């Protein structure tokens, strides 16, 4: 027998669940104080998720996907990116989107049922949330090709789930990225579940990272509850992508501590005991231990941060709740650059109907 190819997948972790460094930390993480923004981003995301779920439970928000337990994937990814990179999220990446400058009010608007929520004031080129699972991987390849053609040192970051890696289209996009060495990073949020389907029912592959190998580029697995590991891996992948070194897949192994969305009831398909056991691994606790042990974080700091984040989230929720509904005819106004005559007639009919009903609003 002649072996013609063999491959390995690296696993990386810097902090163990007790916040202890298991190997020398990367440069950005050596000063504990420098990690506080990452910690803050995770706490803010958790506050936001809690508020969004509460709004949904009280009938003031539509279906919402919490990122509880996966905050390190979001914060690590968002922090690794530069403003000029482009993020293509799926639907659970609010933590990364906030670091990119998307407003919390915007995301509440979106989940509350208002298209203006995807007209981010901050990251103008970032893609909106992608609901059809995995379909944005090809968009990321297209965005990356645009950067490559213009000779720009920028990269696209596509975040997708473990379930999404089963989609043919994700393979199609990764394959293209490999062949053309596109500046794109695929971050797989392996939260162990795709609604009710566990990771091991999704693929027989030992890791999701190895799917990149079939496409001719590197896939690494990181501890997705270690924000330092996520940020480090995505940062390295981005540097490689921006400098012409091609794509990388970063599989961040974490756990979905919440239901899939607010309309899901996870107790139908997984034991509470499994979930409870996973709480000890969660990413915020881990970094807090690390910061506390390093003397960079106190109880007072924690209280102050929680209060601060709570206030910020409340203000965003108030702004969202106070936003007037769009004019009904807005459903026509952004379909095309210029409204075709055919549709102008339908629009006029709707405007007349809304006028007759005495309300230009509808919800």
């Amino acid at each position: 027998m002649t072996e013609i190819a063999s491959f390995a997948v690296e696993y990386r972790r810097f902090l163990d669940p007790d916040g202890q460094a298991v190997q020398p930390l990367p440069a950005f993480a050596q000063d504990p104080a420098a990690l506080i923004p990452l910690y803050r981003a995770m706490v803010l995301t958790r506050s936001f998720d809690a508020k969004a779920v509460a709004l949904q439970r009280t009938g003031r928000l539509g279906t919402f996907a919490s990122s509880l337990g996966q905050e390190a994937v979001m914060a690590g990814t968002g922090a690794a990116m530069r403003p000029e990179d482009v993020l293509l999220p799926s639907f659970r990446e609010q933590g990364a989107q906030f670091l990119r400058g998307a407003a919390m009010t915007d995301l509440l608007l979106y989940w509350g049922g208002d298209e203006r929520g995807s007209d981010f004031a901050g990251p103008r080129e970032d893609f909106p949330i992608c609901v059809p699972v995995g379909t944005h991987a090809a968009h990321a390849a297209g965005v990356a090709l645009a950067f490559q053609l213009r000779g720009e040192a920028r990269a696209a970051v596509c975040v997708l789930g473990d379930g999404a890696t089963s989609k043919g289209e994700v393979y199609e996009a990764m394959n293209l990225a490999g062949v053309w060495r596109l500046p794109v990073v695929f971050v797989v949020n392996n939260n162990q579940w795709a609604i009710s389907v566990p990771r091991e029912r999704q693929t027989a592959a030992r890791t999701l990272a190895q799917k990149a190998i079939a496409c001719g580029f590197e896939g690494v697995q990181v501890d997705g509850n270690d924000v330092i590991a996520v940020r480090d891996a995505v940062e390295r992948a981005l540097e490689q992508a921006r400098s012409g070194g091609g794509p990388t897949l970063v599989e961040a192994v974490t756990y979905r501590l919440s239901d899939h969305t607010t309309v899901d009831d996870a107790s139908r398909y997984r034991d509470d005991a499994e979930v409870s056991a996973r709480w000890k691994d969660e990413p915020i606790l881990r970094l807090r231990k690390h910061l506390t042990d390093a003397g960079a974080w106190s109880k007072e700091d924690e209280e102050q941060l929680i209060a601060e984040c709570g206030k910020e989230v409340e203000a965003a929720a108030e702004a969202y709740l106070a936003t007037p509904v769009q004019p009904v005819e807005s459903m026509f106004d952004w379909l095309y650059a210029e409204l075709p005559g055919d549709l102008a007639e339908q629009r006029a009919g709707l405007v007349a109907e809304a006028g007759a009903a005495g309300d230009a609003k509808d919800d």
Partner: protein
Amino acid sequence: MTEIALIEAVRLAMARAMEEDETVLVLGEDVGVNGGVFRATDGLVERFGDKRVFDTPLAEALLAGVSVGLGAQGFRPVTEFQFMGFFYPAIDQVANHAGRLRNRTRGRLSCPIVLRAPFGGGIHAPEHHSESFEAMFAHIPGIRVVIPSSPARGYGLLLAAIRDPDPVVFLEPKRIYRAPKEEVADDGEAAPLDCCFVLREGSDITLVTWGAMVLETLAAADSLAEEGIEAEVIDVATLKPLDMATILDSVERTGRCVIVHEAPLTGGFGAEIAARLADRGLVNLTAPVKRVAGFDTVMPLPKLERHYMPSEGRILAAAREILEYS
């Protein structure tokens, strides 16, 4: 000026667009050195280089999805699908993304892309190479569906489609790729989108069609003329958004309408036109609206293809039937 066929007109339009706008790119399977399986992109990679003309891996959903990403970044990809029969996996991208991106970001991102595909039967092609499902595209909000029926309109409409700021599905009737030919000026003049073309004026009956069926329909109009019946022939050209005004205006004068398409009858785009005639033009109709269409069958393989395709005879039979009414 020399006479050219539709396939050459399509190529000329792409070359012209690439010449005038460096954001125009060509993508597809075998579109590079091979020039496309029908040669629509022949010579483009030699002229514009492999940073403008890309042979992609074989993956249709990817083709559409990459185009969406490029479009959002301000490029204008003109992306070829080898045959309409292989477009299905990419419909996801058209319906879920291309047609929605401008709307769902309230204009922040847009999708100025053209997705080209040869379609239709009549060339004895293998299985899956002869279908017409333009009506499926016409059902999708936020896009345009454009079908040329001659070299000149192929040139003008494709230029218009490439310059359009929104996504266009551009379906090319491959039965007329090589003939007939006509003189086409490579003058960079686009033809208008969103409007029908009246190919022949007449006051007795209106024949509405698009794509390659324009040939049989014009032939039927000639035959009717020999009997002293003047048929107006309308080429719809842009199915979505539909220029119903031109059709209603014609039927107001003729009182009779036959709609001709190769695609299956049920849910075909003729149903939409007939429904709108019933809605807006009923008082002007002196006879029922007839549809001459393909059957609701799987497209037969070449031996029976001829019996599937709407023929001049079927168009004439439908026309004569409604000319009986007075």
